[in-house]
């Protein structure tokens, strides 16, 4: 009988998928809500440990977002308005703890949606997502694969936005023709290395030697900086280093007398870097994450409601804590809220359907399209424009928004080539 069904076109993969979908119905807790009952949203990210800087500020931002939404009456579904409630679980950037957290959030807390940082923790959660059909978000599209249809990357499009910074650098400093790259050897560092290699190659900037990968447990960066400077590059690229690395690397670059250009995915707490080096040394530092008090974020193209007001509230409540992710999870919640209200339901399947309807979405930095089949095997990343940010006179300034899809249309083959070389394509990841 089974062989007859197989012969009729039911592959093993389809059979397993069908079984999983049936299991979803049995395993997901009821998504129906009583009138006025809070909609619970899971926040499953590192709140302690080395990667906490990319989790905790996001939760702080989401709490401000939730207060704003609840003050305005909550989220309107077909059965009326519901307040929103965040339920957090610290996964410590550990895959096993992330899996436990996902299970608890779904089974015990009855959340309707779970936000994650992703990266090394996603493989721990993926089986839970597959089994329950829960809708998850990641900040790292490199987690996406065709096997996980309920994982979306609706805000941060790491690492592909990095190409915009390199484009700006090449346009602004055409004499800078050589670069070196360093990165921690992990799920954040490696796809980022591949992306920078592609971006530099696209602009004829020679990468002088193999990217220098270091152990995430590294504390003394003097040897790494000595090595980076040894080839006398025009540009030093700090890849997607965590702020725990960006700060001591910049300090070492300053102390060892580096005079060239610097580019990095992030420059969280850059005021502290300036304090340890100098305003002059950090001048022109290129990265990708703006402060939300930037006037450019009050423009008509921006879909993050009252970005400047959000920054003001955040800075008042958490002075000196603004970082790359402070707004990102809140922006994801904006998209989720719009989709849930459109669907009239918090049901994961209804929300993702509404969210992707028409193939476009309102990304924080402008209208964008659901994209990614070539790179991730699935169109679950919302990709459009991304800002290029530069430190000028001690302050982060948006220098412009550049289109990621436009870059990819011209140089996509380069990106795929380097992603493949680092085993980072969706079909290469274990």
């Amino acid at each position, binding site marked *: 009988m089974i062989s007859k069904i197989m012969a009729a076109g039911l592959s093993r993969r389809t059979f397993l998928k069908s079984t999983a979908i049936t299991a979803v119905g049995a395993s997901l807790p009821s998504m129906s809500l009583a009138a006025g009952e809070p909609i619970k949203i899971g926040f499953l990210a590192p709140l302690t440990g080395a990667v906490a800087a990319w989790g905790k500020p996001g939760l702080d931002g989401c709490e401000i977002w939730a207060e704003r939404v609840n003050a305005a009456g909550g989220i309107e579904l077909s059965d009326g308005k519901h307040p929103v409630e965040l339920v957090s679980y610290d996964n410590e950037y550990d895959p096993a703890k992330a899996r436990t957290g996902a299970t608890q959030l779904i089974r015990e807390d009855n959340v309707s949606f779970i936000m994650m940082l992703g990266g090394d923790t996603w493989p721990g959660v993926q089986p839970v997502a597959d089994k329950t059909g829960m809708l998850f978000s990641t900040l790292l599209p490199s987690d996406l694969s065709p096997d996980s249809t309920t994982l979306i990357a609706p805000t941060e499009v790491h690492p592909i936005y990095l190409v915009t910074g390199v484009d700006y650098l090449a346009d602004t400093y055409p004499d800078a023709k050589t670069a070196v790259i360093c990165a921690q050897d992990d799920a954040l560092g490696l796809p980022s290395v591949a992306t920078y290699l592609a971006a530099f190659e696209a602009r004829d900037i020679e990468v002088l030697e193999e990217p220098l990968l270091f152990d995430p447990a590294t504390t003394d960066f003097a040897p790494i900086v000595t090595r980076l400077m040894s080839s006398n590059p025009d540009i030093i690229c700090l890849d997607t280093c965590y702020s725990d690395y960006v700060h001591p690397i910049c300090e070492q670059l300053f102390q060892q*007398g580096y005079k060239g250009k610097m580019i990095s995915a992030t420059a969280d707490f850059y005021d502290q870097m300036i304090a340890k080096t100098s305003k002059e040394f950090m001048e022109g530092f290129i990265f990708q994450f703006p402060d939300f008090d930037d006037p450019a974020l009050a423009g008509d193209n921006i879909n993050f409601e009252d970005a400047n007001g959000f920054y003001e509230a955040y800075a008042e409540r958490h002075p000196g804590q603004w970082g790359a992710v402070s707004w990102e999870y809140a922006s994801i919640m904006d998209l989720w809220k719009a989709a849930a209200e459109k669907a009239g339901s918090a049901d994961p399947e209804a929300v993702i359907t509404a969210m992707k309807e028409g193939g476009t979405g309102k990304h924080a930095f402008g209208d964008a399209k659901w994209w990614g089949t070539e790179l991730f095997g699935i169109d679950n990343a919302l990709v459009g424009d991304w800002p290029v940010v530069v430190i000028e006179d001690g302050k982060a300034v948006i220098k412009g928004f550049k289109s990621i899809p436009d870059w990819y249309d011209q140089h996509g083959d380069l990106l795929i080539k380097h992603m493949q070389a680092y085993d980072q394509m969706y079909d290469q990841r274990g």
Partner: protein
Amino acid sequence: MLDLLAQTGLNAVYAASYISLVAVGLVLIFGVMGVINFAHGELFMAGAYVVVAVYADMHMPFFLAVIVGLLFVGFLGLLMERALFRPLRDNPLGGLVASIGFLMILQSLAVMGFGVRMEFIPPVTQHVIWLSDGISIPLARVYVIVASVLLLSALWYFLKRTRFGWALRASAQDPQAAELQGISIVQTARIAMFIGAGLAGIAGALTAPLISVNPHMGHSVIVTAFIVIIVGGIGSLEGAIIASVVYAFVHTFVTTFYGGVVADITGLALMLLVLIVKPTGLFGSADRA
């Protein structure tokens, strides 16, 4: 190329300095008390947080903060001796497990007291000593090197030339014989814990402005210290110092010329090689191994 070699050498001297302070403290505690102190990396972390509190937050002078770090962590060591290791003196495994528990307590206290993210510590000095156009060393790193040489020299003098030092060495060699000679094992254990913990604390305090201070910073330090004391020979102070220098130079040069991940593998390979050729370590004795 010569500049690169010289700069790498200076980087290695700095690394050897703080690693040797941590490793010697670990060896001293093991030598006298027979306990592998897994919380030693967190004692290093505690010293760094004293600098955060006293220097960065309270704006007291940096060197005062370093001395407070030495004393505070030294007293933490006394607390560990009294509360953990003395009741478990006849149970080395118990002492090890207790130190792991204490490690977690210290990490949690750091999280509760200071939060989870990296602490910002203002630079002690931004002065850089330039030996040539391509060779430099920040003055803050020179402080660490000088302090390490002075402290380890003082420790050597204390152990070789003072009655307390002789008592400590006697306790480490044969606790029962030392006790029969009237040496208080409890007293020598206290001294060893105070000095051993204090060395880790001062290493953390001195290096705090140069590294990322966070609640989990002790992890990489303790791993390095374990490699060093195994290479040097568990229980051997001279071995710990020499192994610190060897490890720091190997790790720093390999990082610079081949990469950080290769350097970590090389460090572990060095430890395995020593264990194969000389299972007691370079300077270890069979009864301590």
